[in-house]
């Protein structure tokens, strides 16, 4: 009975053995090349690279939390998505409902996707409407860096939640003239075309970026016809109605008023047309989900203001997201559905910084209004608009003591929000979230970190209001709260050993006690309602190891083990693992550089996930291997890669397969 899967498993293990062999070869090469140390850097390391800090942005040197930063070089020559790019990082897990363009959500340190905040240039994308943010609506073409803050979120971002935050920084202007054009093509008629250019003629600088990304997503998979216990009716089919296309344009203008003052204007337009496949892959399905998002920021930075030398950053933000779900033929959902949801956010954010001799004081003020307008385009149901107004004041100190060896970073934020919902009374909520972080610079290569904080997630409009015919609302919901604690160290060694040009090692132990988790429960009639009934205790350890060997090899290793215990009194769930998260997660990336040739191999292994809260439906382990190589010839870089080399069929969500083995190639030409 188990012979065949075991055989496949052993075959899979050969892939891992291949990885090990490669590791051994690397080791041999290290020894052989021990004397050949070169000055040229070869590897893009991910732990917190130093970049110029703009007032209001996170200064990694002064951040006591545990974070990782992905730089553009790690994804700009590949056909990939934000979800795939961050999936291999420590503490973060991604769930996808299919191939490129499909719904993707992220969890951090065992927190739910709703408890993870996603920002673009500090602009919060999570809507009050609810649901985990869909990472597939972020285009990578105009991204310069992805900052992942695990557990504790820097105060300068304003908003914070229980899991942490992912801040996506778009391309910056102001540097030297640069740009590139990237053309990509691969299996399933996947096409990606992007270009950007940035220049600074005088005081003015600007960034122009555009992308078109599309795929038929007609990958082959085993359709079990909905009968998992009956292999006789299984068939190998191409995925139907899963194609998508998206366009993204970014415009950024900056103007240096003088050496201390600068004004920035950013506008980004994104649209995606996504088809939604039916669970049984019926070819006649035509369900679609379209998203259009427009966001804009106007920011004025003034440094060295007044006799105390205040640094100010004032930002006005606008965000509008229009979602349209069309299932008029009832292919996917229960009955016919044709809905449009419009979410509009206007926010003013003010960051004031007072740098002193041994400390830096900051004041963050946020005033915002978010309006949510759902419409039944079939005209059958009443429209219930919702509005959330919120005000947040935060104070932060960054105090150096013990001869600058210890950074003490206390912060507190006070938020008051008011929900105004048609047909019901407005509800106001207030919460105070204090936190403190410590960073001890033991010497020039060892840093110790410790953080303790309280974080909150407000109930979403979906949880408060319910949904027609499926969920009833619960206006009495409280906010979820979490107490996060972590402790660990960073080791950074540069040229400390003859053959190791860079070594970074980050280990953190984390603990989170989450109360009043909002869970959808169902009554005897199958009608759902959100209630504050769950609580959970999450503990875990994260390890990130990055090594650059003899300027030829880069080895990145991430490992996370987390225990996510549901502590709800409900005997069904008590002491069970929270569903939808893997308990063990490991990833390895080994890159090699020989002249203009740079091959790499990646391995992601995850296990210990349950699809359900009672833990009776165990998800299969995941085991992915990707390989690829790049050739750089003058200004051109050609990349060829094979994803999921072992052709594993994987489902993050039961019944929604992801692609098997796939080939992709890109050509990037620097301008």
């Amino acid at each position, binding site marked *: 009975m*188990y012979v065949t899967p*075991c055989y496949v*498993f052993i075959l899979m*293990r050969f892939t*891992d053995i291949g*990885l*090990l062999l490669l590791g*051994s070869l690397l080791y041999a090469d*290290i020894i052989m090349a021990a004397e050949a140390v070169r000055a040229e850097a070869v590897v893009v390391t991910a732990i917190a690279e130093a970049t110029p800090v703009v007032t209001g942005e996170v200064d990694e040197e002064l951040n006591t939390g545990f974070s990782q930063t992905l730089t553009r070089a790690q994804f700009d020559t590949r056909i990939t998505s934000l979800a795939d790019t961050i999936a291999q990082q420590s503490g973060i897990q991604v769930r996808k409902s299919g191939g490129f363009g499909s719904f993707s959500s992220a969890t951090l340190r065992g927190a739910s996707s709703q408890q993870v905040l996603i920002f673009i240039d500090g602009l919060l994308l999570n809507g009050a409407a609810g649901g985990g943010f869909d990472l597939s609506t972020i285009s990578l073409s105009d991204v310069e860096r992805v900052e992942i803050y695990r557990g504790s979120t820097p105060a300068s971002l304003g908003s914070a939640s229980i899991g942490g935050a992912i801040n996506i920084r778009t391309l910056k202007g102001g540097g030297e003239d640069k740009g590139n054009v990237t053309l990509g093509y691969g299996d399933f008629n996947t096409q990606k075309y992007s270009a950007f250019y940035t220049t600074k003629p005088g005081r003015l600088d600007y960034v122009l970026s555009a992308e078109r990304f599309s795929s038929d997503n007609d990958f082959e998979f085993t359709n079990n016809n*909905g009968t*998992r*216990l*009956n292999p*006789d009716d299984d068939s190998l089919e191409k995925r139907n109605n899963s194609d998508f296309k998206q366009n993204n344009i970014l415009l950024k203008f900056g103007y240096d008023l003088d050496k201390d003052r600068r004004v920035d204007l950013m506008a980004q337009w994104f649209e995606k047309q996504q088809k939604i496949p*039916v*669970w049984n892959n019926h070819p006649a*399905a035509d369900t679609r989900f379209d998203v259009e998002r427009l966001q804009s920021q106007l920011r004025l930075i003034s440094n060295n203001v007044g006799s105390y030398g205040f640094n100010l950053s004032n930002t006005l933000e606008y965000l509008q997201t229009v979602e349209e779900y069309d299932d008029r*033929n*009832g*292919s996917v959902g*229960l*009955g*016919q559905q044709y809905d449009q949801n419009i979410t509009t956010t206007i926010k003013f954010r003010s960051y004031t910084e007072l740098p002193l001799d041994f400390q830096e004081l900051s004041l963050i003020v946020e005033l915002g209004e978010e309006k949510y307008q759902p419409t039944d385009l079939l005209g*059958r*149901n*009443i429209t219930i608009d919702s509005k959330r107004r919120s005000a947040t004041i935060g104070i932060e100190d960054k105090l150096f003591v013990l001869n600058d060896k210890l950074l003490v970073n206390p912060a507190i934020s006070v938020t008051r929000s008011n929900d105004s919902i048609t047909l019901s009374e407005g509800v106001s909520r207030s919460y105070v979230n204090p936190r403190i972080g410590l960073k001890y610079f033991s010497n020039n290569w060892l840093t110790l970190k410790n953080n303790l904080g309280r974080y909150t997630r407000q109930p979403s409009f979906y949880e408060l209001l*319910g949904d*027609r*015919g499926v969920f*009833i*609302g619960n206006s009495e919901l409280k906010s979820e709260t979490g107490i996060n604690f972590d402790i660990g160290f960073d080791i950074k060694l540069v040229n*400390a*050993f*003859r*053959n*190791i040009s860079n070594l970074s090692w980050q280990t953190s132990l984390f603990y989170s006690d989450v109360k009043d988790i909002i*869970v959808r429960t*169902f*009554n*005897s*009639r*199958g*009608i*759902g309602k959100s209630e504050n009934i769950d609580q959970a205790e999450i503990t875990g350890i994260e390890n990130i190891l990055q*090594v650059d060997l003899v300027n030829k090899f880069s080895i990145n*290793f991430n*490992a996370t083990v987390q225990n996510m215990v549901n502590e709800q009194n409900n005997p*069904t*769930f008590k002491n069970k693992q929270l569903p939808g998260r893997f308990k063990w997660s490991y990833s*390895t990336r080994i890159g090699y550089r020989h002249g203009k040739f740079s091959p790499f191999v990646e*391995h992601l*292994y995850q*296990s210990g996930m349950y*699809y*359900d*809260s*009672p833990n*009776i*439906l165990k998800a*299969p382990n995941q085991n992915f291997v990707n390989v690829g190589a790049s050739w750089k010839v003058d200004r051109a870089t050609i990349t060829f890669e094979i994803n999921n080399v072992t052709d594993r069929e994987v489902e993050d969500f039961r019944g929604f397969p992801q692609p098997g083995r796939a080939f992709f190639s890109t050509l990037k030409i620097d301008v």
Partner: protein
Amino acid sequence: MSSKYSKNILQRFSIVLLALTVLPLLNGCQHDEDIVETVDPLPSSSGHAIISTVASDFSSGATSVVTVDQPRTVVNDISPTISDITVTTDGKNIYRIERFNADNITKFSLENPGVAIWQYSTLDSGEVGSSNPHDFVVASDSKAYILRYGKAKAWVVNPGATTAADFKTGEIDLGAYDGDGVPNMDKGIIVDGKLFISMQALDSSWAPQQAYVAVIDIATDTEIATGKSVINGIPLPVTSPEKMHYSAATGKIYIQGSGRLGFPPFTAAEYNGGIITLDPNTYEINMIVDDGDTSSHPYGNIADLAIVSATKGYFVGYNGWSDNTLYSFNPTTGDVNPTAVANIFAKNIADIEVDALGKLWVASQSDFGVIVVDPVTDISEDQIISTGGLVPDTIVFTQ
């Protein structure tokens, strides 16, 4: 740093690195496919209760089997699966129905409920959308009916088939009972060689329309013209018909309709339901218990039904989300005792059924198990039958 020292460090470091890389490989030869269960044989009993169970967050479901005789033996969490399931039985086998967007039926033997005998789809290859099977009515070892809530046609199938090709043997088109072509057939019952099928006829916004019962001659699988409407079937004076029960004592089929449950703030509850009787020979309908109207609805929506005898029956009053009360009534006169039976009120009641010994089983999701009530005294047994953490949803008995 000396070369020797550096080399030692490097070697040790490489060993650690390789060990870290190897760690994932040491998880062993794990098996990702569905695990075949073995369930210990159940003791003999006057009958067995088969209970579909569900996680309260709807993230999974399973099956429990309980002996009717005391002391009761309970086996829980059999064949874990999705949550949207129900069960039926022909006395020897368990038929597990996976409903919306799952569209399959699995047959298990009562002797070994952990191993599937067969599993077949309830969708034709050309059909788009879910068939949402709601009931599996067994007429004989070689004939059964699948009532497909999401489609116009019920299926005639052979439960003894060994291949999918031999499973479906015919179909019955009931699309004429609803303007949208989908009559939302829900429950079926066979009485005197006739299959009675209740149909809820919801519109596209799930509002219940004129409900019907279609009558099928199971010898020919054709619809019988009842003379009660131009489309053969029997129009009902209640909406959203759900439970159907035939009482040999009164010779009537009892049908419970729940009206429309409220979804505040979107829709208010509508009280167009109640309990009616249907004469299986003359097709005459009588209202026994009316749920009232917008201004007066003493029991709320009437959400379930069980008949013990000609003079004793029970129903569930639905007054809101997880606010259900168990009432008793006289099935002959329709008189209702307005006091909650056995203090079962303000609970989440998923199903009520009567076992072979005449006792009432109440699937109480609030209590994570089944409460058994003696209809003679209306007193519940001290011990609640635990369904193992998952809450009980549907109860059927082998006898």
